């Protein structure tokens, strides 16, 4: 594989700011991802804290979604993808041999850019995860999980009389909240969100953002977003990616009021699109 020029120095050295946090739950160390010959992300180290939201921002193609997909090994589904480095969840390497990616994904849930409810009823959508993981002993318990999950996703009021209708009959915003309910029904420890609001209108977006505020009381949330306002509203920390490098990580307030790196400043002031 041709060695790519080391852009770290060119961009101004190591990641600036503070990649560490209190109570780290997931820790990435020197993570590199290759798609075939393409070195998609380089030497990324980042800590993800318990009960807080961290936002990954950066221009298109900067590697933030790629990094997100490393955290639950969704990159495994891409034949040409190769990941090096070390990512731990609660102290254990998730790329170690004994780690079953299926079990990992039950602990690290994911919400996708486009709402993708299954072609099943609302109830079955939420019950899908508990069923495959055998989380409920009987129907009553399953009902309970479905109701709590819908409740926590703020969707129960709107759908409780029509749980038998197909999930696809809901509006876009409702579908995305259904996908969030589906994810939390598995009772994960981390929730990854890949631009969860990019296909939604502002009102639906506001509801999802409120939801994130509530959910971060129990989960670690990693959100990829293109909207800096969204990052500012929902996250405690922000990580700025640029061309496969993690340029700067810090508390959200610091990043938006006093970015240390020139590239971060250019991006948040709108000079890099």
């Amino acid at each position: 594989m041709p060695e790519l020029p080391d852009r770290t120095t060119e961009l101004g050295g190591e990641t600036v700011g503070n990649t560490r946090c209190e109570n780290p739950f997931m820790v990435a160390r020197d993570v590199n991802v290759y798609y075939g010959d393409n070195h998609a992300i380089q030497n990324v180290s980042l800590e993800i804290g318990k009960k807080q939201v961290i936002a990954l921002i950066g221009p298109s193609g900067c590697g933030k979604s790629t990094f997100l997909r490393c955290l639950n090994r969704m990159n495994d589904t891409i034949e040409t993808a190769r990941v090096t480095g070390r990512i731990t969840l609660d102290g254990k390497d998730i790329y170690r041999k004994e780690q079953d990616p299926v079990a990992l994904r039950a602990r690290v849930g994911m919400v996708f850019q486009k709402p993708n409810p299954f072609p099943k009823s609302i109830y079955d959508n939420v019950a899908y995860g508990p069923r495959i993981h055998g989380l409920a002993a009987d129907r009553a318990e399953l009902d309970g999980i479905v109701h709590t999950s819908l409740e926590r996703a703020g969707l129960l009021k709107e759908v409780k009389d029509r749980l038998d209708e197909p999930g696809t009959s809901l509006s876009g915003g409702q579908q995305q909240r259904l996908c969030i309910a589906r994810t939390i029904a598995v009772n994960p420890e981390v929730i990854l969100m890949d631009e969860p609001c990019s296909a939604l209108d502002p009102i639906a977006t506001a509801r999802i953002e409120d939801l994130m505020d509530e959910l971060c009381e129990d989960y670690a949330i990693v959100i990829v977003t293109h909207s800096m306002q969204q990052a500012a509203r929902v996250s405690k920390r922000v990580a700025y990616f640029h061309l496969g490098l993690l340029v700067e990580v810090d508390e959200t307030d610091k990043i938006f009021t006093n970015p240390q790196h020139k590239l971060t400043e250019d991006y948040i002031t709108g000079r890099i699109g």
Partner: protein
Amino acid sequence: MQSTTLILLLAFIALAAFYLGRSRSLALAGGPGQIRVLHSLPGYYGYYVAIWCAMPALALFLLWTLVEPRVIVALVVKGLPATYQSLSAGELDLLVNNIQNLAAGDVISVDADAALQNAAAQFNGYAVRSRQLLTVLVVGLAGLGGAIAWRRVHPELRARNRVERVIRWVLIAASSLAILTTIGIVLSVLFEAILFFRKVPLAEFLFGLTWSPQTAIRADQVGSSGSFGAVPLFAGTLLITAIAMLVAVPVGLMTAIYLAEYSSQRMRAIAKPLLEVLAGIPTVVYGFFAALTVAPWVREAGQSVGLQVASESAMAAGIVMGIMIIPLVSSLSDDAINAVPTAMRDGALGLGSTRSEMIKKVILPAALPGIVGGILLAVSRAIGETMIVVMAAGLAANLTANPFEAVTTVTVQIVTLLVGDQEFDSAKTLAAFALGLMLFVVTLCLNVIGLGVVRKYREQYE
């Protein structure tokens, strides 16, 4: 003038009309730089003139060739001596036929007397005159139509809209052709079937349990009067179709799942074309594979476990038909599975499904409409399949559910009823049309149900 020459001439005139119309529009506009003053591009004015030039002339030509023979025959018959005038319609037809043959210089069935010779000469005379008249009229009409259209070319003329309207009608005519042909086939089968049902009651045909279409041809012949209960044929068709589907659906579906979800790119690139080769083998080859290879094998296998197996068993035909249909099922299912969005796969995997859970619980339900559609198409194909069953399933119309006995199918009987010299007023021959009608009705129902299922699921899933 010959028809072909005339058509070529007409095409040439139309081409000239195109250039004349185009250049006139350019001249009116004041040169190629000024075409903005025209409503349409110059080419459309050309097409406009060409259409007006060619279409009426072509219509006249077609009408003339349809009517011409009848008019000439009527004129010739009118000119015959009085003795011939009193002939019956059938005899007159024969006579006219002879005259036409004589005119063309062919051998005829009676002595060519003076009257006939005269009539043949007359016939040829009329034909020549008719052609001359047609040539003049067609060329004249083309010129006239072209000239009128040429004069009407004007910058404000909405030539493009008019040309497009004509094109739309041409497209409608083309798409009607297939539909009209289908209707024609249905009607022709229907009329013959009605003739059959005059001789054999519908209830006997639909519910009778004995099929033995041999009838005595002459009244003095010894022979059965025939028995037309089609139930054994339907049962045989169903039995073979069921066996074929039992082979094709699981194998085809599993092939599709493997190709779509598990195989590597390289494997897929090899396996898909190979499967398509299987689809390209002529059915007659499958037929002798069934009759010469599979049937003896089935018989031996059956005998080794103590079963009585006929050498032409439903099993052999069904298995081979199933193999033939595998590519159809697998490629349609493969398409359906591939059409399930990646977002569904990601969603299922992201929740911690294993690959097989994802396929069973998400991909297959989402792909179901396409898969069901594919299976129904395969059933249609199996019911209508002829060559394999002709060669491997036998002719004995046994009413049985035992797959190791010989059965016969609707298509096999249609073939045997219509092969060789046949008279079209006996129930035996007409029975083929009744069977064909049944086959058509069944496949039509299958398609309607299949489309209904597909639509229902699609509404639910999108």
